């Protein structure tokens, strides 16, 4: 161990969580794996490790990307580090019955091969307790229809990076309307050239400017939906 190295075991819980936030920020995958195991060994629930350490750290990464402090590769390195921690936690989360907030089918639209943002959203949504089915890139409307029919998600998420491909989101939404199933799903959209006005104009429920916002928006809509279902049941 060099003079610069720090034994994570010597840190108390608060210090370790803060340290893991820094390590996540720096994309230090091995350190995140070690920190995750230490917190579990100390009796933390997998859900707490995920939300209080990894998701909290990744939210800061997302904010700094949005503010122009971090570049895409650095965000990807942080995401890889988070993924390493999640790989440890995932089987444990299933065993311990961690809360599932909702489910989502997500994919990049037809004609578009860009998936960095979509992948970050998928990961953050999983971290927040959503079950995510990622149908990948270049998806025609049929792929979305097949996936929502098979998985019956709460949310349909669509991503596009290009001005030329973002109008395809409208095609998907109009198809849902034609089939009479538009209101069965919360439709969230995101991608660099999008904005609130565009999302509204195509009939989406919400625009998510980044992965952290996507999680908050998804939680809000799902909670609202559950409230409505609850109100109907009580009526």
């Amino acid at each position, binding site marked *: 161990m060099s003079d*610069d190295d720090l034994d994570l075991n010597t840190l108390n819980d608060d210090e370790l969580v803060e340290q893991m936030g820094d390590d996540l*920020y720096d994309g230090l995958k091995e350190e995140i794996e070690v920190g995750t195991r230490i917190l579990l060994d100390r009796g933390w629930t997998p859900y707490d490790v995920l939300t209080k350490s990894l998701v909290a750290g990744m939210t800061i990464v997302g904010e*700094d990307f949005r503010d122009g*402090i971090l570049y895409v590769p650095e965000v990807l390195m942080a995401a890889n580090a988070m993924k390493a921690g999640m790989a440890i936690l995932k089987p444990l989360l299933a065993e311990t019955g961690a809360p599932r907030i909702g489910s989502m089918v997500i994919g990049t639209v037809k004609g578009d091969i860009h998936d960095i943002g979509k992948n970050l959203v998928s990961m953050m949504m999983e971290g927040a307790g959503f079950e995510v089915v990622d149908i990948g890139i270049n998806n025609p409307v049929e792929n979305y229809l097949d996936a929502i029919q098979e998985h019956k998600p709460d949310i349909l998420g669509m991503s596009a990076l290009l001005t030329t491909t973002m109008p395809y989101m409208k095609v998907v939404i109009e198809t849902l309307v034609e089939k009479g199933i538009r209101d069965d799903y919360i439709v969230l959209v995101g991608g660099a050239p999008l904005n609130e006005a565009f999302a509204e104009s195509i009939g989406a429920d919400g625009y998510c400017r980044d992965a952290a916002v996507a999680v908050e928006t998804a939680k809000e809509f799902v909670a609202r939906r559950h409230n409505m279902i609850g109100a109907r049941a009580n009526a």
Partner: protein
Amino acid sequence: MPEQTPDDDQRSTSSRGGRRTGGRTGRRGSSSAAGTARKPVPTIEAREGAAGFRHPEKPLLILCGAIASETQAVLSASGLSDAVEITALPAIWHNFPERIPEGVETKALQARKGRADRPVFVGYADCGTGGMLDEVCERLDLQRIAGPHCYSFFAGESRFDALADAELGTFYLTDYLARHFEPLIWEGMGLSANPEMRDAMFGSYTRLVYLAQTDDAALTAQAEDAARRLDLRFERVFTGYGELGDFIDGLRPEASAAP
């Protein structure tokens, strides 16, 4: 990043201190040994001295710095060099299209301070602004280059569509982007600091098409080198200035005065 070792003691360590200055220090905006703080992007104001408005009697062309040379070449060939005043916005905004609408609006409003009816043209296509540039153009009565981006107006819309349809995973370079691949793409997208992330960023791409505005062997070699560095198949398509010429034709006094 520290190497992983089988040693338990090593595996429970974190390199706090010397090597780990890139963490939240970057967020606070201080300089960072790990290089996580971005270089400041030139502001409009910073460039104003060099690109002021000295000829309010002429139409103004607000253009993307990444097509400045090409635009000047077309203006010169069209005999319009002295008929239009030009001001450029930072070429690095190619990577930050969300800054373009506000940048154009600021310039246009500045230009019309002394002459409210001054014709103002915009040397951008939509360029990733998702319609926000159109909103500014409509509100301020500005005319921009038709199409989604410079690749399309250099290649011509139908030829560009054919290229994109033939191979979706195509990354495009123009003369400007080939010449400035290092600062704009390699460094500008953060790959110089983290080259191991190249495949994560470009893994869905299969080829690089260099849309050449000029016949320049040195530039072609640079574009080919860029393709090699991104691990993409290389193709060169000569476009000339394409539909940029049509746009510049529209700047002629008789054209801009037409109803």
